[in-house]
């Protein structure tokens, strides 16, 4: 009987990216004395917190053998919705009514928007059998267009006194975005490891047909997962908007690519069923450290893109080599 080490392999992969991260950190520290400082560490963590939020959702989607290309646009729209409601509220000219929004109310509206857009993705994918790539590609355009309509193409800035605290504030010595992404990660880990939903996500990605015949409501699980991805993109949108104290109509462009990169570097299989949230977190940190390190080393931003591309490629090659060992 062939008793290979498949059961342990995911751990091994995680271990590998951890080693890669440590080596990367050591390498950069040797070349720049600004890298290995507490300030810089928080700086990096704060920068990647948005990507971590988005990527946690992306991991769930990819585990079901799907993909969500719309996260960047959803992030922009939700940030804009929050900013717009906060700054202008809603005026209903017909009844001469004005509804103002508190910070919490505006944020809730943004998060609900994100969940609804994600739900719509899942609905299109499950009801009309649109491939996830196509459905979310359509949403990428739709949500960006709605953002332009909502903002009329201009940033919505100066959002009041307290709103920027979310993106720039500290709590117990830790930046608030890091708190938020940390909580998101913990919840995502609980979902994947400890809940029925999590098990269903892995099962559907592993074998959708067998899962259906096992009595799993595939559509419900998928819609839930895309809605979660939309919600997490919206959280990212609130953080970005708050950090800049401004909702940019062009916010979040190409964020889906960084997110997919984090998922892939983290060892999650794009064909579904295999991968972990912690892997994705490591993947996001690797990308963040790489970006930060290259900036500290004064590498041109153009070269940074080249390097990042090769790292993604390398990660997948290593992952392939690992799965071949079975």
């Amino acid at each position, binding site marked *: 009987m062939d008793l290979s080490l498949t059961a342990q392999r995911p751990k091994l992969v995680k271990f590998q990216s951890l080693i890669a991260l440590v080596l990367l950190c050591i390498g950069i520290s040797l070349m720049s004395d600004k890298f290995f400082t507490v300030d810089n560490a928080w700086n990096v963590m704060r920068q990647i917190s948005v990507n971590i939020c988005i990527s946690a959702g992306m991991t769930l989607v990819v585990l079901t053998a799907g993909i969500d290309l719309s996260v960047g646009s959803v992030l922009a729209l939700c940030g804009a919705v929050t900013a717009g409601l906060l700054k202008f509220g809603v005026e209903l000219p017909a009844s001469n009514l004005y509804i103002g929004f508190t910070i919490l109310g505006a944020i809730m509206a943004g998060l609900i928007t994100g969940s609804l857009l994600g739900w719509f993705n899942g609905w299109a994918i499950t009801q009309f059998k649109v491939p996830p790539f196509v459905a979310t590609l359509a949403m990428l355009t739709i949500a960006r267009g709605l953002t332009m309509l909502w903002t009329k193409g201009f940033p919505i800035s100066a959002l009041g006194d307290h709103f920027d605290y979310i993106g720039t504030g500290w709590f117990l010595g830790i930046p608030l975005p890091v708190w938020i992404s940390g909580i998101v990660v913990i919840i995502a880990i609980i979902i994947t490891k400890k809940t029925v939903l*999590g098990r269903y996500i892995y099962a559907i990605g592993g074998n959708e047909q067998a899962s259906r015949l096992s009595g799993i409501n595939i559509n419900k699980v998928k819609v839930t997962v895309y809605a979660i991805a939309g919600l997490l993109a919206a959280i990212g949108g609130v953080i970005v908007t708050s950090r800049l104290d401004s909702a940019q109509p062009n916010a979040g462009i190409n964020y889906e690519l960084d997110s997919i990169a984090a998922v892939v570097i983290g060892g999650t299989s794009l064909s579904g069923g295999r991968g972990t949230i912690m892997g994705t977190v490591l993947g996001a940190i690797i990308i963040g450290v790489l970006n930060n390190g290259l900036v500290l080393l004064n590498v041109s931003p153009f070269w940074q893109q080249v390097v990042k591309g090769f790292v993604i490629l390398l990660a997948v090659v290593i992952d392939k080599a690992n799965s071949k060992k079975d």
Partner: protein
Amino acid sequence: MLVAENISKKFAGVIALDNVKLELPAGKVTAIIGENGAGKSTLMKIISGVYPAYEGRIILKGETVQFKNPREAQQAGIAIIHQELNLIPHLSITETLFLGREIRNSWGMLNKKAMRRQAAELLEKLKLQVNPDCLIADLKVGQQQVVEIAKALLYEAEVIIMDEPTSAISESEVEVLFGIIAGLKKEDKAIAYISHKLNELFKIADHYTVLPDGRTIESGEMAGMTHDALIHKMVGREVEIVRNSNTVKEKNSLLKVSGLCLTDEKKPILKDICFELNRGEVLGIFGLMGAGRTELTEALLGTCPGLVTGSIVLDNDEVKFQSAGSAIKAGIALVPEDRKKDGLVLGMDIKANISLSSLPALQHSTGMLNHQSETELAKKYISALKIKTPSENQVVKNLSGGNQQKVVIAKCLATQPKVLMLDEPTRGIDINAKNEIYKLIAELAASGLGIIMVSSELPEILAISDRILVMAEGRITAEFNAANATDDAILKAAIADIN
């Protein structure tokens, strides 16, 4: 033709083959027999170049050969026809046959005419009466297999290995296949024929090679061998013949199906199906390929809710299932025909597969998964069904066919079903595991479950059913009590409507 000597192969330190020898003479069919996991497939993969690293040597037509990949083996004249066919559904027959060795004209473009002509000739020779432009997806499994054989002939293969070629085809298609094999023998091809179906081997094979455990190997002439002697060599002990007690049980209706029809795109697939299933009864459903057996099990499981009409009464309640989930909740479970495609999530461990249909019941009140009760559930069924595995955390992909099948059954049993449907429960698994599954079915029936067993193997149907329904072209054409059922009568009913 081909001799493999002193072949040894290890996987991750586990010895799969230890110093075995295989001879495949020209113009003969050599039956290769052994339990799943005994190393048959490994040996065939070595010969066909899938595993380039092994000890020992392979001699083809007097020359030692060493293949680096399947392509080299193919070019040397070794073709393997896998149990699960590897054809690309969207290609036509011609495109499939010439894949990777397309004929080009002097412009470097595809010479479609020449390819089509050759393909037509080959199909004619193999008596497959279909247009070479037909898509693979539109062919029946048996026909696809003939295409695989045609491909082997096109490569001018001298050695043809067939791995369980009849596991997915109907009895009439088997006859066609045997005709083709007889033709290949005349052309002096060496044929290795792997099968669990001993009756077939007696019909078709000249030699046998038994591989009981990957270490010893025994070969000889098929003539003079008996069924029992062969089984004895295979398992090293006599196999107890399965139950055939058919004790008369009092009627206690559990499931009543009446007027069940399934219509897909205006094409009737099931027509007016009526039957009753009692508690503690094993109801065998026999039918040839395309008779609608599998569709019946899926209709009962509620996987095609919009297309089904008729009434299903379960335990005195009229039920209408909108999904597999609602059927499972009501107490109907299905062990599907294709365990790898429909039954298991191969990349997950045994525990997660067993619990897959019953997870909602394994939650804490907080909504979190109760890992402890999940493990207990898995352990309970691993020991109850004697699943051979070092632990419940073993990935299902690494289990043998028989053990995988037991995991699927365990998953169904974990839902506490009233009715258990098994679709071809012993397909592609070895005799020992088959017997264990027969025994299990008998035990489950004795415990009060109603069991529906769909099978295309007559001996199996006859041995373990209390009552037998025969299906043909979407209808039930006959019903027998086990006592008065015979091979002939059942087969006759199964082909009654076809002509």
